[in-house]
């Protein structure tokens, strides 16, 4: 029967125009079963398994540990063993060389059903003595089809080719530093590390970032916050996500990125928080945090961290993050300089709470090509104010409780200068009564 499945490099995230093949699970020519994982791609965020769609024989057109452009055909599954012979392995296309578009076989040749003729087509054919069998393989035949057959030159349209999409190449790679095997042991960079370098290098390598810091007074801050939290008691992350997501709506430049010649503002505010517990550094998205309550944000944090640990993250949990928060508070740091992620313009770092000084440092690194210190400082100040507003204030409760049972006037409001009289209310309870209610107006 022939070709059963063509595996192309999938487009998993807008930014990943090429993916790495990290695993090839069979050798070319092997038999595969429907549902077998035949290969694994790695995106900038996660991995992606490809399954065989049916039983057959696999032919690989790629090699492990190489990058391939999206849409490149990297494997095929055939029904017969012989068909997989002589696989022409693709030269990996790296850094934006567009792969040739995959041309699907023209369908015109596969119609095996009845051919229908329009009335006008039939008339023309009768007139010109054209046999219907000439149109075998067509579904419909109009007068124009008949005329095209009789005068092939007429009406032929040049197919409209789509221009190949090309992308500006990345900056030339720097030469690697020498590594003398006598003096050093060279370890291979993991793909995760490579990605990390690309991600953080994108912005930091220009050197145009700057970091500003502020203190948040934390004395009494958790009295209120903990009321909204179920599990993450004494943690600032949920409330910082909550407040900064709301605040970012007013700071579009911090929810944006530098495209190279313009500033792209995200339409949504989707902050992410960085996580690194044994499974590599990842940033997880709290989608539309600006519309979530603190308990909902806490729930999201827990859900995402769970998925991170179980390796069940969705690509959607990792993409389109518009602002990043990195929380090193559990590491006891006093302050640090966070690095801005690719396609972000800023990142907020949370340091540990200093138990003695009752405060904690917030650090904001921002891309100077997008915004500047004044605005970043304003943002940080406003965030600080918002966070500090959670601190419990001891409202003085001096005269509270002394209220005229009749007119509900409080002792603080009394003008008589005589004060209230203690009394027994008609319900038999202890109470107070003011002078005017006692005597009438």
């Amino acid at each position, binding site marked *: 029967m022939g070709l059963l499945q063509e595996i192309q490099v999938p487009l998993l995230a807008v930014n990943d125009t090429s993916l790495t093949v990290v695993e090839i699970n069979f050798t070319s020519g092997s038999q595969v079963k429907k549902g077998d994982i035949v290969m694994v791609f790695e995106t900038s965020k996660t991995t992606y398994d490809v399954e065989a769609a049916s039983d057959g024989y696999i032919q690989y057109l790629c090699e492990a540990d190489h990058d391939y452009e999206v849409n490149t055909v990297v494997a095929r599954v055939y029904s017969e063993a012989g068909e997989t012979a002589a696989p022409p392995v693709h030269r990996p296309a790296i850094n934006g060389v567009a792969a040739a578009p995959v041309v699907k076989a023209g*369908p*015109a040749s*596969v*119609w095996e*059903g*009845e051919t*229908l*003729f*329009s*009335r*006008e*087509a039939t008339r023309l054919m009768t007139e010109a003595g054209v046999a219907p069998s000439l149109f075998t393989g*067509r*579904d*419909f035949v*109009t*007068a*124009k089809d008949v005329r095209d057959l009789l005068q092939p030159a007429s009406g032929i349209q040049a197919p409209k080719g789509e221009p190949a999409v090309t992308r500006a190449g990345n900056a030339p790679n720097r030469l690697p530093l020498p590594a003398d095997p006598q003096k050093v042991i060279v370890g291979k960079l993991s793909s995760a590390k490579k990605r990390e370098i690309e991600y953080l290098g994108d912005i930091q390598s220009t050197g145009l970032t700057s970091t500003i810091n502020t203190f948040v007074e934390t004395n009494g801050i958790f009295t209120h916050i903990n009321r909204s939290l179920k599990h993450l008691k004494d943690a600032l992350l949920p409330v910082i996500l909550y407040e900064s997501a709301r605040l970012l*709506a*007013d700071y*579009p430049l911090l929810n944006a990125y530098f495209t190279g010649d313009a500033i792209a503002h995200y*339409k949504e505010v989707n902050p992410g928080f960085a996580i690194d517990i044994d499974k590599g550094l990842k940033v997880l998205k709290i989608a539309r945090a600006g519309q979530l309550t603190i308990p909902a944000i806490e729930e999201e944090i827990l859900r995402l961290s769970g998925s991170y640990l179980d390796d069940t993250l969705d690509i959607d949990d990792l993409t389109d993050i518009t602002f990043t928060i990195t929380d090193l508070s559990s590491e006891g740091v006093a302050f640090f300089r966070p690095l801005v992620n690719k396609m972000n313009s800023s990142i907020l770092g949370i340091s540990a709470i200093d138990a003695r000084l009752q405060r904690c440092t917030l650090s904001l690194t921002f891309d100077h090509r997008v915004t500047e210190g004044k605005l970043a400082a304003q943002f940080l100040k406003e965030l600080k104010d918002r966070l500090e507003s959670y601190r419990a204030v001891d409202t003085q409760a001096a005269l509270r409780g002394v209220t*005229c049972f*009749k*007119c*509900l*006037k409080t002792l603080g*409001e009394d*003008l008589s200068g005589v004060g209230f009289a203690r009394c027994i209310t008609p319900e038999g309870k202890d109470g107070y009564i003011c002078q*005017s*209610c006692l005597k*009438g*107006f």
Partner: protein
Amino acid sequence: MLSSKSIINHRIIKEALRIRKVEEKFLELFSQGKLNGTVHTCVGQEFSAVAFAGQLKKMDFIFSNHRCHGHYMAFTGDVRGLLAELLGKASGTCGGIGSSQHLCHNNFFSNGIQGGIVPVAAGYALGNKLKKNGAIGVVFIGDGTLGEGALYETMNIISRWEIPLLIVCENNFYAQSTPQHINLAGDILSRAKAFGIRTGQGETSSPEELMHKAQQAIDYVRGETKPCFFLVETYRLNAHSKGDDDRDPAEVASYAEKDFLNIFRNESPAYYQMYKEVVDQEVDSLVEEILLEEELSPERYHQHEEHHTGNAWTPLETINKRQVELLNAFFKEKIAADEKMVFLGEDVLSPYGGAFKVAKELSFLRPERVFSTPISEAALTGISNGLALNGFKPFAEIMFGDFMTLAFDQIVNHASKFHHMFNKKVNCPVVIRTPMGGRRGYGPTHSQTLDKFLVGIDNVKTVALNTLLDPGRIYQSIYNEQHPVVVIENKTDYGKKIAQQQLKNFVYEHNEDPFPVVRIRPAVSAPTLTIVAYGGMADMVAGMLEQVFAEADHKPELIVPSLISHLPVDLVAASASRTGNLLVVEEGSGFAGIGSELIAAVTEIVPHKIHTRRVTALPVPIPSVKSLENIVLPDKSRILDEIKASFQ
């Protein structure tokens, strides 16, 4: 005089004073040009707000009208949000979008359409009754609103269905400029009594007594789960809105003398002064602070969204059941199991089950969730809106599409606007279903397709069913919607089975959008004519594609949208730019119709000229007599003739 009366609670004086202060502040700000739009102040009427709005529980709710500031403050206590709202600031209770007449906070709602809020309030109250949560509600109307029909439709229903709603009619003897005697016939309380509704009466000039009577009325409504109508005699001391006062100054002065707060000022100047200073200080400093604030940025109010039609196609599934059976099955399943589900409409009780039997047996399955309404399209739609605001998923049936006009205010001024005018604090996921279309000889008022009047309503989706897709699938998507949806069913489609006729030489497929688009295209050839048809016309056009090919010498591609308020312009444009020919068939008349909109949108994005044509109903009421009805509505032979004439 005050001194002859017994003791008055100072708390309510302070509350009334605060309301008065805020109202006077608004007038002051208005005269300084700091306030945009309009205000209707309640100076003189404050105690009505304090007595009713002020004595409700937190879980209760209020619907109010244009003169709502006092009600708002007494119920929510949110003076700051109100001030900021009228000053047009982002921190206002509705971000400055709603302003004076459109407030929403916790369970408080106001709207500027006289009478329109009454059925919505009834629906909200019905929701509480279904939830058995013991909450009740108050709806405020003015005496001028006694002229509105929706009020009486609703009074009939709340009495019959024992809905715990307290209607408070604030009788200030004027409607805008018009004294009551010019417009009001008969007696006010007799109106409510005629519906069997308990009534009450009080005056703002005796606040203690009014407080007491209000509490009694509230207790009655809550305790008995029954409606009540309370008439408050009062007088507004300021103009209707700003400077528009033609009343006799002597009359106004005489009422000002009787005004309780004025009397209190004269008799207890020291207390008055102290309380006044507190509210003055509170309100003035709030205003100073608020004046410096930002207004809502346009992006936070509206952001353009691109609509992309899905381009992954799945074969159409033939279903050997009639459309009406599938509709009925969907509703049966939902009504039996779904806690949010409510079904309302005229004659929907079983065994009758609605004029077209969509509701068959629903009321047997769950009688408490199926409401047969009186003939009252405005009220039943408004009640559905209120249920939707209260967390339910109401499906309202309007017996014939032509009657949608009677529900129009509830769709356009209520369901459509709530979400945005309340600055996205609420959603109103109401569904209004109705059959449209002719070919059954029902004549001018029972046959028309009025979809073009519905598709342009902001934030309301309009869906047209067809015989190519499982209606249950579409209704599941409708069920999932968070905003209002109007569904147009087609009378002649009810009896047809789904995707029955599938010709070999065509491919029948649909995309995976929530409201799928159906496409029927030649099996292998490139099409030469793009046809768009929807609703009842889709069935007719799908059934004549072979004829179009044979006789008009065109290979047609038929595109059938089901969501007609957001047409698949990109898809149609892509097809039409390839074929160069675009025909739109609709059952309503053509001027300013769906075809006009679609063709305009397509030609905006197709760079070269395409040939276009609309086939529509003739612009006359649909005749009953069969021969004429077939001429007025588009039929196969007219469609064919138009194709032959327009697309050579």
